[in-house]
Structure formats: structure tokens, C-alpha cells
């Protein structure tokens, strides 16, 4: 009997992580696209780090930043009554941080690509900055943002290194599907490794097709 818990957990964790990455990432991308200063590229570089850092290194830093002995970790514990590390919340944090750069980069590019004259036209007819963003800029940038969200979701679903470091590998609690595949191979459980890989590979291909379609339709 196949254990579906890791798949279910992976989907849940990456769904929540994607929502968080969209809320935070699109807002930050909007600020980065609109308020250019010398700090803009610094901030963008910091939020791009998760792409270039080895995932285990990213996980190590997150562990250092959010562990039970850190200020942030203790604050979390006093707020929610339990530590963040080695929990499903930890897995969500790891997946969110991994997904964020994809959302931010795609959203920033898409928002910058919106014709500034159209945004000016919206201001001239009386829209507030907030309404310009909501009614004009973000809808016009939606496709590019969508591509970034899909890539971010795929990245969140596939994360291994940061998740293992921050959330651990507790079967039935924090063991996501990529981690379960690793475990299965270690244990010589060919069938589980094969099924898990097929499911993850299949979802990755679907995401890739979706993203390719978005860019094909744009032309």
C-alpha cells in the first residue's frame, strides 16, 4: 500500500507557500519596479539569493535565523507556543523562501513592461496610485506574474535541501515527497521511489507546458 501522506503534505505546503510568495513577492516586485534607487538592486539581489545558493546552505541560514536559539525563533515560539523548526510550518517557510525569487523576478519584469503611458493615462483620468496598480498595472502584468507563480510553485513543490534542514525528515509529519523519494532510495524501496518521482516529474512537466503556453500566447 502506497503512503500518500508525503504527496498530500507536499501539495499543501507548496500551495500555502505559493500564496505567501505571491502576496509578498508581487508587493515587493511592485515596489522594486516603481521606486528605483541604489537600494533596489541590493534588495533584488538579496531576494535572488535562494536561486543561486546551494539549497542546504539556504536551509542552514534559515535554521540559524529561525532556530530555537535565535531571536526570531524564540519570538515565533512565544507567539504560537511551539518552535518553527522541524514542523510543517518550517516546511512552508523553506518552500516560500525558495519560491519567492521566481515570483519576484517574473513579476518585476512584467510590471516594468507595462507601458508607462497607459499608467499615466490612468492617473490623469483620476485613479489613485492604488487603483492604478489594481485596475491597470497588475491586470496587464498578469500573464508574466502567472508564469513566475507557476515556476515558484514548481520550485516549492520540489524543494529538498532547505526543507530537510529547516523542517527535518519526520515521516508522517514533515516528510515531503522529494524527501520521501530520497528516503525510499536509501532504503532500497524501488516502487515508492519510482511512484514519487513519476508524480513529481509529471507535475513539473505540466507546469513547464503551462509556462510555455503563457509566453507563446503573448506573442
Amino acid at each position, binding site marked *: 500500500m502506497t503512503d500518500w501522506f508525503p504527496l498530500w503534505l507536499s501539495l499543501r505546503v507548496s500551495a500555502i507557500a505559493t500564496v505567501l510568495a505571491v502576496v509578498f513577492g508581487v508587493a515587493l516586485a511592485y515596489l522594486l519596479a516603481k521606486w528605483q534607487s541604489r537600494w533596489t538592486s541590493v534588495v533584488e539581489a538579496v531576494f535572488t539569493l535562494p536561486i543561486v545558493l546551494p539549497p542546504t546552505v539556504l536551509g542552514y541560514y534559515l535554521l540559524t535565523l529561525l532556530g530555537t536559539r535565535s531571536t526570531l525563533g524564540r519570538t515565533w515560539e512565544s507567539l504560537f507556543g511551539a518552535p518553527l523548526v522541524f514542523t510543517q510550518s518550517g516546511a512552508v517557510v523553506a518552500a516560500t523562501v525558495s519560491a519567492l525569487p521566481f515570483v519576484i523576478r517574473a513579476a518585476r519584469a512584467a510590471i516594468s513592461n507595462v507601458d508607462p503611458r497607459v499608467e499615466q493615462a490612468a492617473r*490623469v*483620468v*483620476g485613479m489613485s496610485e492604488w487603483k492604478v496598480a489594481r485596475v491597470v498595472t497588475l491586470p496587464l502584468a498578469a500573464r508574466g506574474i502567472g508564469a513566475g507563480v507557476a515556476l515558484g510553485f514548481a520550485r516549492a513543490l520540489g524543494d529538498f535541501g532547505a526543507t530537510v534542514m529547516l523542517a527535518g525528515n519526520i515521516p508522517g509529519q514533515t516528510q515531503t515527497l522529494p524527501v520521501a523519494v530520497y528516503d525510499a532510495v536509501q532504503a532500497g524501496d524501488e516502487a515508492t521511489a519510482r511512484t514519487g518521482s513519476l508524480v513529481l516529474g509529471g507535475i513539473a512537466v505540466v507546469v513547464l507546458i503551462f509556462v510555455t503556453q503563457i509566453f507563446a500566447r503573448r506573442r
Partner: protein
Amino acid sequence: MSNLIVDVRVEVPGFGVDAAFVAGRGITVLSGPSGSGKSLTLAAIAGTIRPVRGHIRCGDVTFAEPARSVHLRSQDRRVGMVYQHAALFEHKSPLDNVALAVRNVGLAAARVVAAELLERVGVAALATAKTRSLSGGERQRVALARALAGEARVLLLDEPFSSLDAAARQAMRQLVRSLVDERGVIALLVTHDAQDVDALADRVVGYEPGQTVAATE
């Protein structure tokens, strides 16, 4: 009766223009070679760029006066703008392009006003069409309706006919003329076309590169 008084210097990297003129009701054509600063003047009046000195006033409302740190937001100036390539909201219907520009009412009421305006500019049948599918002339009509929807006091027309064919251009000229007269707005028209000047100008402000040189009635 209120006039639009422009006496400013506007700068962008590598270029600046000194513009000084007074425009009353009717159509004032800003005429001169490309790159002489006509569109930059319109941008300063629309509030999308800040002048470095001088002032822009419309009646008793000061749009901009850097010396007193006055810079009224575009949203609060009650100007309408028509761009060379319309700059419509492509993801919205023509009806909603106009409805979004109607001020101080809910969406349903705004759509009623918008429908009347589209009727007035002759594209009522296209109200719910796909905006992307409109022709150049149709787009400019929607843009004109949008520019007037906010009860604009000042109508800024930045080469609105230049991308149109001869027939559409002629029809658009007549429409602009009748709408400006009907609504009693102060219209500024940037154009390179001598025929536009002949057909529409109540006043002409001449530009040389970087400055206004003469105004003629």
C-alpha cells in the same frame, strides 16, 4: 472666464524647454519641429512631469509652482489627455475604458455616462467589443471619450491624428472641433500637420527647439 497660464521650464535628461503662453477656450495649436518640447509641455500640464521653475495655473487653481512647492497630482487637475497611440486600457472594454474615467459615481452610473459619451463620439456599437480589435480611428474616438469623461477643464491632444488615414483624420478633426465647442474646454493640440492648423487652430503657439517663440490668434 478662466484661462490656462503656462510659464515654465521643464527638463528631462539632456533636454529642457521654456514654455510661456496663455490658452483660453477653444483650440490652441502647439506647432513646431519634432523635439522642440511640445509634448514635454503637455506632460507638465498633465502633471506626469514636474517643471523645474515657473508656474502653471488654470483659472484660480495652481497646477504647479516649484518655488512654492506646489505640485497638484495628475488625479486632481481635471485634465483629459489623448495620446498619439491612444494608450487605452487594452484589457478593458471600450465602455469600461471610459467608465473608469468618470469621477465620483459608482460603476453602474459611470457606465451610463460612458455609454452616452461613446454614442457622442460615434462608437456606441463597439461599447463591449474587444479593445484590441478596434481600428486606429475607433481607438482615438474611445480615447477622446475617456479624456472628456472626467469633466475635464483642459483637453490635451498629443498628435491624436498622426496615426490615422486621411478619411479618419478628417472625421476626427470634425469631432474634436465640435466637442471642444460644445463643452467649452481649453484644448491644446500638438501637431506637425499644417492641415490640422488650418482646420482647427483658434490660436497658434510656435515652438523652436527648447522654447516657445510666438503666439498668434
